[in-house]
């Protein structure tokens, strides 16, 4: 329980800036596709007997680069490609994982996470990986923000958009891979995006939005795990449900305020 709480809180803080950028750049669907392709990475990791987190990370980065490359063609909107791919990736992942007979795999654990099965090694991933992610975000904060505000303008002003974007994609892949253990690949993007959505109406600056996102995520992790322990409900989904309720309240309040 303590380990679950520590892992969840660590992830909540690491995910906050990434979640904000995903929301600002309207990349939720993009992230969703990358995350769901993560299951292929699990299969790959099992097949090659390598670290599963690394496998997921690798596949996530490959899929993300593929998507960026697809988005350069103009015949089909990226949105449609994502709609197609994220189901295909999930299907391929489920097939791949189930075809690997040994070791036996807890598919539900990968899909929805198993926060109470967090090992000490996972904690190392969360905190070491998280520290690196936060450091890089802090370092690239200005160019990331400028790209999120207006990509063409930032590029014209000299921001190296390809490089910054590539770094962002890698960060996203790391967070997805690490978060998979806790909330599963189906709920990873919710863990990133929902707190950011909840924070948006309450924030006046980008930085405040990140801090609020982290606070909402931290609160949701605590409440969700408490719910989970009390009601014996699955951990990851319980956290996401709490986040969604907070987002619902926040958006409702914003809508009511907007109508006045």
């Amino acid at each position, binding site marked *: 329980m303590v380990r679950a709480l520590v892992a969840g809180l660590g992830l909540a803080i690491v995910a906050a800036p990434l979640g904000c950028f995903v*929301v*600002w750049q*309207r990349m939720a669907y993009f992230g969703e596709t990358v995350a769901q392709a993560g299951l292929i990475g699990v299969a790959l990791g099992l097949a090659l007997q390598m670290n599963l987190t690394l496998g997921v990370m690798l596949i996530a980065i490959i899929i993300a680069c593929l998507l960026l490359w697809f988005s350069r063609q103009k015949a089909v909107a990226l949105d449609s490609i994502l709609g197609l791919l994220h189901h295909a990736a999930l299907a391929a992942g489920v097939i791949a994982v189930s075809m690997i007979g040994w070791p036996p795999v807890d598919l539900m654990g990968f899909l929805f996470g198993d926060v109470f099965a967090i090992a000490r090694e996972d904690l190392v991933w969360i905190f070491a990986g998280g520290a690196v992610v936060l450091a890089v975000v802090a370092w690239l904060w*200005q*160019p990331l*923000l*400028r790209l*999120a*505000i*207006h990509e*063409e*303008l*930032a*590029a*014209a*002003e000299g*921001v190296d958009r390809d490089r910054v974007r590539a770094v962002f994609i890698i960060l996203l892949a790391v967070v997805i891979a690490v978060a998979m253990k806790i909330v599963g690949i189906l709920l990873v993007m919710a863990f990133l995006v929902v707190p950011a959505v909840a924070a*948006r109406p309450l*924030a*006046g*600056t*980008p930085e*405040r*939005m990140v801090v609020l996102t982290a606070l909402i995520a931290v609160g949701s992790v605590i409440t969700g795990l408490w719910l989970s322990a009390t009601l014996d409900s699955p951990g990851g989904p319980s956290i996401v449900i709490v986040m969604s309720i907070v987002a619902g309240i926040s958006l409702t309040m914003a809508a009511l305020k907007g109508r006045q």
Partner: protein
Amino acid sequence: MAEREGRKSPGAEGAHGHSHVQGDDRSCRSVARQKSNTRFDPNSLISARGLGISRDGRDLLIDVDLDIREGEIVTLIGPNGAGKTTLVRVLLGLEKPDRGEVHRRNDLRIGYVPQRFDVDSVIPLTVERFLRIGGNEPPERISSILSDVDASYTCEQQLTELSGGELQRVVLARALLRAPNLLVLDEPVQGVDYTGEAELYNLIGRLRDHHGFGVLLVSHDLHIVMAKSDRVICLNRHVCCSGVPDTVAQHPAYVRLFGAQAARALAVYRHHHDHSHDIAGHTHPAHDSAGEDSGAEGGSRA
């Protein structure tokens, strides 16, 4: 008049030694190509020769030459799909041309006002912060430039709260903060009403007079732009014709591209605006002399 202009400003038009109004007939363009393709205009802030871009077997730009000198307002007009934005993107270095070259003067600093600035309501950002980000300009300079574009009162507001015209002026302020010697505006009046449009163009003209930077203005609107411009380039994937506003409007290629009605509307506009006021209230004759002034100015500075 045409000859004088040609002598005083040895740019894209002058370089091939005849009237600055280029026809779109083959002979004219081939002459222009032979003589100008190899030589950039050293006095220009930015100088492009023989630009060509093809996408999916379709030519977006064909053999485009362009020079913008300091203090000069160049307006780029053309129908939708004429390649105006593509040309701007090439000049800004956002896109690589398949053919031709762009020469940028060493001290070139571009201030860019993009075509659409949809403020993403998902990013909470005040005007002040938007102007500060990436530059760390002192607050005094930010507020002074905001007042230059008549937008001081927006400083503490969220970008999403601004009207289309206010937002354009704020984006313009961001471009000005970079102390540009070339201001590039891609259809800056989209989403701005008619009065706002006229005001924005007056403002750009005033700022040009004050700072002396070159301006490249992309526009689909023929009536307002023309009066403020020193030179108009009419683009339809290739340069159809170019010159000072009134000559270009009489050019057969222009009339073919936009129809006789557009040319007449322009004449009406000129009648109303046969002079303009600068920032100090002095009266200037419009068009012809403005074009020559800037040509001479550019020459003396170089």
